[in-house]
């Protein structure tokens, strides 16, 4: 009937992405009329980080030099399968780097982006006790949508700290026997992932100084990974990642359907509930889940038995939020939400069972912060001769 109007509607231009930083700034203007309102609630950290995306590395000429000679091998199967599972693309490289001095992680006092820097002082809003279901429901309502085009890339910048585990074994490369060890490896990462999975992605990782896994000495190995390395994330024929935006877009948009999907995902030897919870993180971490599916995911997550709420959970950037988590192998894996908007801040792992986790109760054994999620027209081209598809031979 209204063909002309429908024609105009059909060809509406793509909406530009709304960066989290710009969005947070606009929101802050509403609630921040005075000095009090400018309270450093987390988002200021975000702003600082997005203004200086590589703040930590700036001035670090050594890092640039190291990157040029970095040899990276992306192993088909990672060794660091910790309590907080990593995305498949995140296998640590068996990088052999020349010893390059790392610039020390100095905060500038105004931001908490450097893990070793001073913590941001935040004034916490009063939060009523809420159930997991309610938090997840609120998160679902805060869902936003970036609407990337199929030919674009989802770009995610994050800071991570995960456990690196090594069982006592003989190193196949060197023939050296090694003792069982654990440490926490820390990185700043930026990943570019093709929205439809048809274009090669890229990953930039800046290694930060490792930390001790509470209760374990830092092994010498922990200091091997230094500097910055890049990896190409090639498209492997016929195998679109199941976390590609266009794949995620096809997931169920109702909680029940999403729940079925969570329980149907590959979970290895994990019990079904653990597998389903792990799937929740995998769908959110370094991905962009469209708003409808995100809403469904949050609701579905709340139905997984054992999901709990922790007030005052802090992410790797020092931002505080509400942790929604589940205990696995003695570690409670929290997904941390901004307590006001319920945007994803990051994740953390906290030991709750000393025996199961083999680390003192209360230890922080994983901590990440998803600093910025945006849409990019292209991914950097990475000269990465070692990148190839797993099972590529």
């Amino acid at each position, binding site marked *: 009937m*209204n*063909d*002309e*109007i*429908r*024609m*105009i*509607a*059909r*060809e*509406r*231009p*793509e*909406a*530009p*992405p*709304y*960066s989290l930083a*710009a*969005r947070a*700034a*606009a*929101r802050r*203007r*509403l*609630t921040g*009329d005075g000095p009090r309102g400018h309270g450093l609630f987390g988002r200021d950290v975000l702003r600082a980080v997005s203004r200086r995306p590589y703040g930590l590395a700036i001035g670090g000429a050594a890092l640039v030099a190291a990157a040029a000679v970095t040899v990276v091998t992306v192993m088909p199967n990672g060794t660091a399968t910790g309590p907080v599972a990593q995305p498949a693309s995140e296998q640590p490289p068996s990088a052999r780097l020349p010893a390059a001095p790392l610039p020390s992680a100095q905060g500038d006092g105004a931001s908490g982006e450097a893990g070793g820097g001073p913590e941001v002082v935040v004034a916490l809003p*009063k939060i*009523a*006790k*809420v*159930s*997991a*279901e*309610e938090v*997840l*429901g*609120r998160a679902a*309502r*805060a869902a*936003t949508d970036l*609407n990337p*085009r*199929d*030919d674009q890339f989802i770009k995610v910048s994050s800071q991570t700290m995960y456990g690196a585990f090594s069982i006592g074994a003989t190193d196949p490369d060197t023939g050296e026997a090694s003792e069982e060890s654990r440490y926490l490896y820390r990185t700043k990462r930026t990943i570019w992932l093709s929205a439809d999975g048809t274009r090669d992605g890229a990953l930039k990782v800046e290694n930060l100084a490792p930390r001790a896994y509470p209760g374990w000495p830092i092994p010498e190995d922990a200091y091997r990974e230094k500097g910055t390395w890049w990896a190409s994330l090639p498209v492997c024929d016929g195998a679109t990642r199941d976390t590609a935006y266009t794949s995620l877009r096809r997931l169920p948009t109702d909680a029940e359907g999403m729940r079925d999907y969570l329980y149907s995902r590959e979970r290895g030897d994990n019990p079904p509930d653990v597998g389903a919870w792990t799937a929740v993180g995998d769908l959110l971490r370094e991905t962009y889940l469209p708003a409808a599916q995100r809403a469904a995911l949050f609701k579905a997550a*709340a139905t997984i038995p*054992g*999901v*709990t*709420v*922790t*007030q*005052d959970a802090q992410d790797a950037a020092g931002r505080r939020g509400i942790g929604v988590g589940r205990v696995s192998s003695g570690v*409670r894996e929290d997904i941390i939400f901004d307590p*006001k*908007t319920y945007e994803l801040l990051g994740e953390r792992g*906290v030991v*709750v069972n000393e025996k199961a986790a083999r680390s003192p109760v*209360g230890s922080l054994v994983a901590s990440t912060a998803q600093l910025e999620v945006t849409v990019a*027209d292209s991914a950097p081209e990475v000269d990465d001769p070692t990148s190839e598809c797993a099972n590529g031979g």
Partner: protein
Amino acid sequence: MVRTAATDIPRPVSQWPPGVPDRTPLAEPSDAELIGASLDRPDDFAGVFDRHADEIHAYVGRRLGPEHADDVTAETFLLAFRKRHRYDPARPDARPWLYGIASRLISGHRRSEMRRLKAFARAANREERPPGGDAYDEERTAERASAAAMRPALAAALARLSAAERELLLLIAWADLTYEEAAEALGVPVGTVRSRLHRIRAKLRRHLHLPEEGTP
């Protein structure tokens, strides 16, 4: 320090959503309720922002391009916040109100919008994607669209409408407002919306060289 609440604990009294029985996580206050609550507790207005900022940003971005989207969106909500005491509590959905404010701000950027539309319109004559210029990125979208060849013509047709006509048309076509909502946004009777749209469609048909109405 670390407090953990089990899922099955009795649900405590929630402070959110304000004024709404805490029955189910899906029970949420209307925009009107949030705006009403924000008169006493200004921070509650952030809830209106959380709900609609992305949509308004997308609309502004479509009309003015990425360079103005952030600022105009921020300005829209700031103005809305300042005028919130005048919000009609009988209207549960604040979208028409917000779109109305955004529309008026967009009209202050008419030259930017015309530049953008003319850039789209010119695109037909270019073989290659010209270097630089955010507006040209839209061409790639055009390539995906089935009616790719129509796009420059549509942009040209949009550019030939009056500012008021374009405002109304795009609230319907790009913001997906109903006639009633568009009328509310623009502060005109819905009958006016209908008659204006009739005129707009006739113009579009003429500029796009489409058959007259009634022709199969």
